[in-house]
């Protein structure tokens, strides 16, 4: 059943399909499996972190620390795998616990000290990147055999596209994220928080555990994205993924989630990620844009998407309002 509430999702999906068709009509090579596989592989870490960001934004918050947490995770893994003989899986568990705890701590600060998320996570952003610097300023390669094993897992599609493990991991994260958001009590509480914290409190939503949980998820997924990124680059680098939080926010917003909280879908974020990836692929295929025009075009496309979404939503909601104008008790 398609409901009016699913509208933004439909809009995003339609936008993506339309944009892809346009790109493909100009560069037929964009239809190759390589491009499809690249969209998944290259955006895997961004997708994973955007799932966490979706939760945060649905609750009306924001998490600026994720880019730094990804960098920290990479450096941490690289350093620990270089300096100790610990198995990567154990290191993964350790770093996930660390980043989840970091997120939870930020959530607790936000809730108990009543500080705005923007600022708390901004401090978190400085802190995580600072910690990465302290661990190592140089980029540290990861040479563990287990990494090679993981990296060699891929399915080579006809046409040369390689569907890699991390792309699959992203898809799994999205599925899990969607389940948690739409089919659990915690997910309902997240939406409730986004609808209005005070009202949610009066309705009996446990604000503390929900807030802490949301930021813990975001932190944990940033950790997972960090692991993904380290698999992607086989290295840890403290200057990596600067500004990724803004990319993630943009993807979430393009995916139809309202920054003010309460409205949106995890699946929408998936298409938001794909749209952003598509923009970049298109620019590479074009190959004539100078550095500055690249920035301007990205900004302009971002604006175009927002405008398109705004227009479609506006057009359909005014119609809907008229249609259901008189829902009266009988």
């Amino acid at each position: 059943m398609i409901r009016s509430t699913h509208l933004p999702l439909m809009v995003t999906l339609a936008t993506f399909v339309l944009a892809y068709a346009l790109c493909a009509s100009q560069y037929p090579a964009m239809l190759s499996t390589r491009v499809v596989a690249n969209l998944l592989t290259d955006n895997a870490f961004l997708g994973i972190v955007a799932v966490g960001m979706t939760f945060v934004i649905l609750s009306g918050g924001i998490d600026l620390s994720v880019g730094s947490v990804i960098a920290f995770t990479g450096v941490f893994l690289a350093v620990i795998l270089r300096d100790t003989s610990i198995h990567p899986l154990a290191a993964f568990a350790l770093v996930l616990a660390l980043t989840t705890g970091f997120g939870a701590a930020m959530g607790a600060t936000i809730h108990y000290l009543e500080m705005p998320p923007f600022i708390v996570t901004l401090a978190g952003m400085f802190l995580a990147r600072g910690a990465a610097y302290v661990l190592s300023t140089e980029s540290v390669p990861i040479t563990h055999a287990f990494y090679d094993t993981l990296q060699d897992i891929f399915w080579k599609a006809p046409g040369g596209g390689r569907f890699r493990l991390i792309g699959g991991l992203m898809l799994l994260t999205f599925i899990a994220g969607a389940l948690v958001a739409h089919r659990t009590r915690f997910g309902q509480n997240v939406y409730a928080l986004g609808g209005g914290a005070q009202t949610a409190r009066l309705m009996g939503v446990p604000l503390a555990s929900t807030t802490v949980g949301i930021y813990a998820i975001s932190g944990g997924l940033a950790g997972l994205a960090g692991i993904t990124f380290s698999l992607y680059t086989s290295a840890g680098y403290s200057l990596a993924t600067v500004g990724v939080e803004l990319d993630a926010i943009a993807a979430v917003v393009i995916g139809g989630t309202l920054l003010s909280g309460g409205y949106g879908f995890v699946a929408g974020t998936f298409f938001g990620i794909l749209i952003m990836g598509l923009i970049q692929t298109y620019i590479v295929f074009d190959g004539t844009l100078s550095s500055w025009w690249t920035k301007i075009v990205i900004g302009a496309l971002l604006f175009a998407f927002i405008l398109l979404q705004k227009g479609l939503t506006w057009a359909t909601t005014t119609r809907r309002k008229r249609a259901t104008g008189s829902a009266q008790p009988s």
Partner: protein
Amino acid sequence: MSASTPSLLKRITPQLMILAVVLGLNLLVFPDFLDVSFRNGRIFGNLVDVFNRGAPVALLCIGMTLVIATRGIDLSVGAVMAIAGATAASLVTEGHGWGTALIGALATGALCGLWNGLLVAVLRIQPIVATLVLMVAGRGIAQLITEGTILTFNNEGLIRLGAGTVLGIPTPIVLWLGLGTLATLAVRRTALGMLIEAIGVNEASSRLAGINSRVLLICVYLASGLCAALAGVIVAADIKGADANNAGLWLELDAILAVVIGGNSLLGGRFSIVASLLGALIIQSVNSVILLSGMPPEFNLVIKALLILAILVIQSPKIGHLIYMLRASGPESLPERQRPSTTPREDAP
């Protein structure tokens, strides 16, 4: 509406205290910190540097305070700085005078602000997204103007704006103090401040009460654009060149931080420009501690993060409340029953 002096003083006490503590830290790592001498026709010293180097963020946070008071945010100010600097530089290298360059830069800043304002007030796009567009594209526009190079210039008039002095005081200090005073007077001696606060708290109510919220919102973003443009000119003049790639990079975050350290709520409403300016000084003092301490640069961010975290935690309403409670239960405490037991936020229906 127009805050009287004692209430203003009460409002900015926490910021003053924190500033004093951070300056104290500076003194700790560098005992001659407070020395001010007169050299080369200008006052000279670390304290002067704090005021001078704090100028860009201070200028930005004047506009940012107003934007945040309307429950908005302006992420584009860093990019606008770059655009304005590039405009000024390209105008003087084309042979125009510094006055034209300044006006040109301010006009571009105003244009950027107008663009943001239209997106927010007319198209009703959420501020953070609306200004993200210009944040992403703006630096590209600036580079388009300079063609990716650092556009250097020798126009004495323009350089004086960034590196010159007025009566021995570096021009940037004069500019931000002047503009800060002007802005404070403009919002507090007129009804502007209250009207801005009103649309920040409840725009629907304000519109029904007859406030032209659309125009006011546009004006606020316009002001932010102008402040950013001025900051951009100063930064360019300071290094005698427009560095489109780096001018104002990530400075929007510092400006927002300054506003929050100034005790203003990101949810809009009551605001104080003076407190924000103190916030900018606090941030610059933190930077100064880092520079003077001589620690290796890889610790810069950790130190900054921890100091800022400490400042914010101290300022958090919850902690303030706790301190109030502790003091209340001290020897000369109020009678048991008069203790407030909820912070205002909890009491919102």
